[in-house]
């Protein structure tokens, strides 16, 4: 019931935020922040109170009673569809990430959104609710439902509060995810039909569908349906083209959620569904997937290097970083998977922060074009220093979370395919180049004379506090990553046992 409440709090909170606009137009953002914090505290409070929480046992993938939490209630018994939610170490990390970044996103919208604030915060909270649903649903129908429904508030956020080319970006985002989602729906239904003809029962439960016996060709096709849906969301080259548009055009809070959380639903889907449901097919397919990942790492980095738009550069860097996640997942050994999970968390923080900085710059300069920036450190030293921190985090400076993640992925990958690791490592070098270029063009270098009369204001207390949260998180992940690894380890162990 805790998991249902987590989602309900956000849904109801969204309605409250929407209605509160009538009282005072500053109310919605306060309510939204309050709701997310309450949700987070409620979750933590419940977790810490659980007696078995201190001694994380190794959960069996197919046995929900060994998971940290499990909830099941009938919904549409005619098709064996139930409201089944469950939580293991990985979903727990993702839920925490979602809620923390949710609070960050509300903070990012604090002054950025000036019209229809109530509807904005409502959409933000509803998106978070949908993402939580994706991370916790273990009924494939319910999972698909959250997967699709979370797009609608996100679509509204881009379409209503986005920048100059928002209509195009929102449409592209929606069509890409919808069309690939339909492929997944066909795969899900086909999987259920195969299971139905084998057992005579309709069920959408993940636990029942694991180990469904099926012909080799069938499992290949079905696995592909899942794979395409997840890599479009991740996104992986060549399915990434929606991402630069959507990230660039979305309002700051939207970019934070998109890059920080929504992309991770794709990675989560790969780990949770695409491989364990079709272990043989996925393992045979792993070289193709790894090749796509390595291509994404290099391609994203090279294209990012050529960008002049601040947000677009970060967007392409996401393509590069998500390539590491794909590599980590399909290398499918413990080190690489640990790295993938770590990357999901660390990239969430570093990109969210960079998008917030981009948003603050746009708010002050009314442009995202780096050719019109330069020497901003002079006016805004605090923002410059913060940007420096996250830029070096993103390029993988040792001591910060992203380094640990990428290092683990490379280490695990090297055992499977050394050459693939070599190619991926090239991405790190290019990564350093574009990241430093970003810093140099905007904050350092010669002072742009046109900027002097903009009356630039440095980061204030709210912004610094938000940034500090993410800095602490990244330093923590970099210096002492063990707690995160401990959460993920038993789950990954048992997942690894599902494959031959």
């Amino acid at each position, binding site marked *: 019931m805790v998991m249902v409440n987590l989602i309900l709090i956000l849904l109801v909170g969204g309605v409250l935020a929407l209605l509160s606009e009538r009282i005072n137009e500053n109310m919605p953002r306060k309510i939204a922040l309050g709701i997310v914090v309450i949700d987070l505290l409620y979750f933590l409070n419940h977790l810490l109170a659980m007696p078995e929480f201190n001694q994380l046992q190794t959960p069996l993938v197919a046995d929900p009673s060994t998971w940290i939490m499990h909830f099941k209630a009938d919904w*549409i*018994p*005619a098709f064996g569809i139930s409201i089944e939610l469950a939580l293991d170490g990985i979903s727990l990390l993702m839920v925490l990430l979602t809620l923390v970044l949710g609070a960050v996103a509300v903070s990012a919208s604090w002054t950025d959104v000036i019209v229809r604030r109530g509807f904005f915060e409502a959409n933000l909270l509803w998106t978070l609710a949908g993402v939580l649903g994706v991370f916790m649903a273990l009924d494939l129908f319910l999972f698909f439902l959250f997967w699709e*429904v979370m797009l609608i508030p996100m*679509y509204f956020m881009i379409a209503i509060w986005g920048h100059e080319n928002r209509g195009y970006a929102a*449409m592209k985002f929606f069509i890409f995810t*919808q*069309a690939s989602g339909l*492929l997944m729906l066909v795969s899900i*239904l086909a999987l259920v039909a195969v299971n139905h003809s084998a057992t005579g029962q309709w069920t959408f439960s993940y636990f029942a569908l694991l180990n469904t016996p099926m012909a080799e060709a069938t499992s290949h096709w079905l696995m592909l349906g899942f794979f395409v849906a997840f890599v479009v969301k991740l996104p992986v080259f060549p399915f990434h083209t929606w991402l630069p548009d959507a990230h660039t055009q979305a309002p700051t809070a939207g970019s934070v959620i998109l890059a920080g959380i929504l992309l991770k639903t794709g990675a989560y889907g790969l780990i949770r569904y695409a491989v364990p449901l079709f272990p043989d097919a996925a393992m045979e397919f792993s070289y193709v997937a790894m090749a796509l990942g390595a291509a994404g790492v290099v391609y994203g980095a090279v294209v990012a290097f050529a960008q002049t738009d601040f947000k677009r550069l970060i967007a392409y860097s996401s393509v590069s970083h998500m390539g590491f996640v794909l590599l980590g997942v399909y290398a499918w050994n413990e080190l690489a998977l640990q790295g993938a999970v770590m990357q999901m968390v660390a990239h969430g923080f570093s990109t969210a922060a960079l998008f917030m900085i981009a948003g603050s710059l746009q708010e002050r300069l009314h442009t995202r074009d780096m050719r019109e920036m330069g020497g901003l450190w002079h006016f805004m030293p605090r923002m410059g220093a913060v940007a420096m921190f996250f830029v070096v985090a993103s390029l993988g400076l040792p001591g910060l979370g992203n380094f640990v993640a990428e290092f683990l992925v490379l280490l695990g990958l090297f055992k499977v395919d050394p050459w693939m690791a070599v190619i991926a490592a090239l991405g790190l070098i290019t990564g350093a180049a574009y990241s430093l270029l970003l810093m140099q063009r905007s904050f350092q270098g010669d002072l742009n004379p046109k900027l002097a009369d903009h009356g630039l204001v440095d980061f204030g207390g709210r912004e610094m506090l938000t940034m500090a949260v993410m800095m602490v998180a990244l330093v923590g992940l970099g210096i002492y990553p063990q707690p995160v690894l401990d959460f993920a380890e038993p789950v990954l162990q048992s997942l690894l046992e599902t494959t031959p």
Partner: protein
Amino acid sequence: MTVNLLMALMPILMLSLTAVVLMVQASIKRDQLVAWFITALGLLLTLWGAGYARDFTQPVTALLIVDDWGLFFTTLIVTAALITLILSRDTFSTEGERKEEFYLLLVLSVLGAVVLIQSSHMVSLLLGMELMGVALYAMIAFPEKGQLSLEAAIKYLVLSACASAMLLYGFALLYATTGDLSYGGIGLKAILAYQQNPLILMSGTAMVVAGIGFKLSVVPFHMWTPDVYEGAPTPVTGFLATISKGAVFVALTRFFVEGQLYEYHSLMTALAAVAIASMLVGNWLALKQENIKRLLAYSSIAHFGYLLVVLIALAHESAEATLIRQAITFYLTAYILTTLAAFAVIACIAGEDESKNQIAAFDGLFWRRGIQASSLTVAMLSFAGIPLTAGFFGKFYIISVGIQSQLWWLLGSLIIGSAIAIYYYLRIVFAMTMSAGTATKGQCSASSVAQDVLAILLLILVLLLGSWPQPFIEFAGQL
């Protein structure tokens, strides 16, 4: 004829009675308001009649079959007629002309639809289809000043006549080979006739299916649809899209199942081609439309392409007949409710003003008429098949059925078609989110409270059917 048979015909009797009373009333005192109330009362009585007849389900003569399935669709269609009635009151009341004949035509057309739904014989099929169609021509042409509506009516009339001629010729060929005109009789005798004279039998069935396909406006019989949708008064367009098409599809299903048409491979191949073409062409042509009624016309072409998948699935031996029947029931219900929701909003916002049927007229509707915009958004999402809406569960059924019968080509077209469709449905949603400064555009003509209540009601129905379908699935399973 026993009393029991009359009881089973209760809905048809009630509708006929309403028509007679309306005619008598027109001869005594012409009054639009009275006519409106008589029609409303008559339709409500028909609803009661449909419930009452459930205790007397049986074949009535060779022509009609009264069963739970047909009675359910009767109920649905009469409900849709009531909504059309509510919408048309606002449309026609402002013009100050005598409009009470419209209600008479409406009742006659519904009567035709009910006969069509309960038909079990070629004669009743033709009777129902013509009664519905002839009344519809007049309804489409009803606005006296409308050039477009006249054009639409003529177009529909001429092409309908062609379709009817084709249907009749098909009947003749079927009769020549099988010597029977009832669906069941054809089904029994056709297998033998197929061995003797396959060509004539197949051309006969193909002609009947083509004649029906015209009314459903599947490709390649779809040419009339956008013009008629655009030209007809908005409530009539809604009527055409829901009642007419729904009733015809029910009749087609009966003919298909009873006549065992799914046994013939060549016919199924042709039907599959029609379905694929409808899904792709319908969705593709909808992309470029600027007029929302034309857009919905093309979208309806695609939706009936999706529905044909279910009929084709019958041919496969692994198909489950109960699942297929449920799929048809669910999809048609979802489609009818969603279409009504969409046209209720369009009738309210656009009215009869041609310029207001453009998508641009919906700019910023969210900030002007939040309830109407929400209702139209939900309708569009339901058409697009987004979860939690009725349309999604309909699509869920169709994909399930398609997978069971392994119709991969059709499923592929369905996915491509749906992916294209998202674009034009979202265009409308996007237009409504724009911050338009022209707040005066598209005001609702009449009492907006009633319109809002209707919009909310339909919105809730569409969402409820999609988010909590279990009761309806159980109900549909018993039909």
